[in-house]
């Protein structure tokens, strides 16, 4: 096992590890604070719509497939196909943000705000921070798509998979574990 065995840029792996650690710290803090009021956290969590989160998981993993295909196309110098797949991946990101926005709107309509309960403070901070990463990822996919060079597309796709990876890890504690 050598550093050179890692696919892509080492710096991208440092970023992926850092981001996963930041989200893991946030989730661990939430799970720790939950111990002071498990019933309150469960009641607050029950107000969330898990169906939206499940839909967004399918959207995100599908856009991850497109990002991976873009990476493969760019590696084969098929720039047109790479751009098409990058566009589809970014479209998945936009769809994710639309569903997330609808979810936030429904939450606020139900009277849920960031200060309603400590659970919602974590919920809005963690999912909001993740949504900011999705937005950054969409911009990044657009930038690497301009020239569609293999190394750049690989880095963009790796960032996108990191966003995907974080989502599957934060989903159960935020939406499902009561």
């Amino acid at each position, binding site marked *: *096992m050598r550093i050179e065995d890692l696919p892509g840029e080492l710096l991208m792996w440092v970023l992926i590890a850092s981001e996963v650690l930041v989200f893991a710290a946030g989730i661990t803090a939430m799970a720790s604070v939950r111990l002071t009021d498990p019933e309150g956290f469960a009641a607050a969590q029950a107000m969330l719509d898990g169906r939206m989160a499940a839909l967004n998981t*399918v959207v995100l993993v599908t856009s991850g*497939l497109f990002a991976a*295909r873009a990476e493969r196309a760019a590696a084969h110098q098929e720039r047109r196909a790479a751009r098409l797949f990058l566009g589809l991946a970014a479209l998945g990101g936009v769809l994710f943000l639309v569903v997330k926005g609808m979810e936030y709107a429904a939450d606020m309509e139900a009277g849920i705000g960031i200060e309603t309960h400590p659970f919602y403070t974590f919920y809005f901070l963690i999912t909001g921070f993740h949504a900011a990463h999705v937005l950054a990822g969409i911009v990044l996919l657009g930038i690497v798509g301009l020239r569609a060079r293999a190394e750049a597309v690989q880095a963009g796709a790796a960032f996108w998979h990191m966003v*995907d990876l974080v989502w599957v*890890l934060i*989903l159960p504690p935020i939406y499902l574990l009561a």
Partner: protein
Amino acid sequence: MEGLTRTWLLLVALTAATTTLAFFDGRVAAALLLVLAFLKARAILSGFLHLKRATGWIFVATVPLGIWLTVLFGLYAI
């Protein structure tokens, strides 16, 4: 079937299993939900981020993840 499609199908299947399991309460369901999260993360790392091609690195990435999810389960099982 090529690898990327297989990884995507696995992720969709694991998401479907997660959605089904979400209807159940209790420690066993919680443990299974975290196992499913681990398997999804492993599929992304291995299939989409290509760690299956990097000897030993999938182990380096998934062991800390497994330990963290176990700690998380402990915090929810208390």
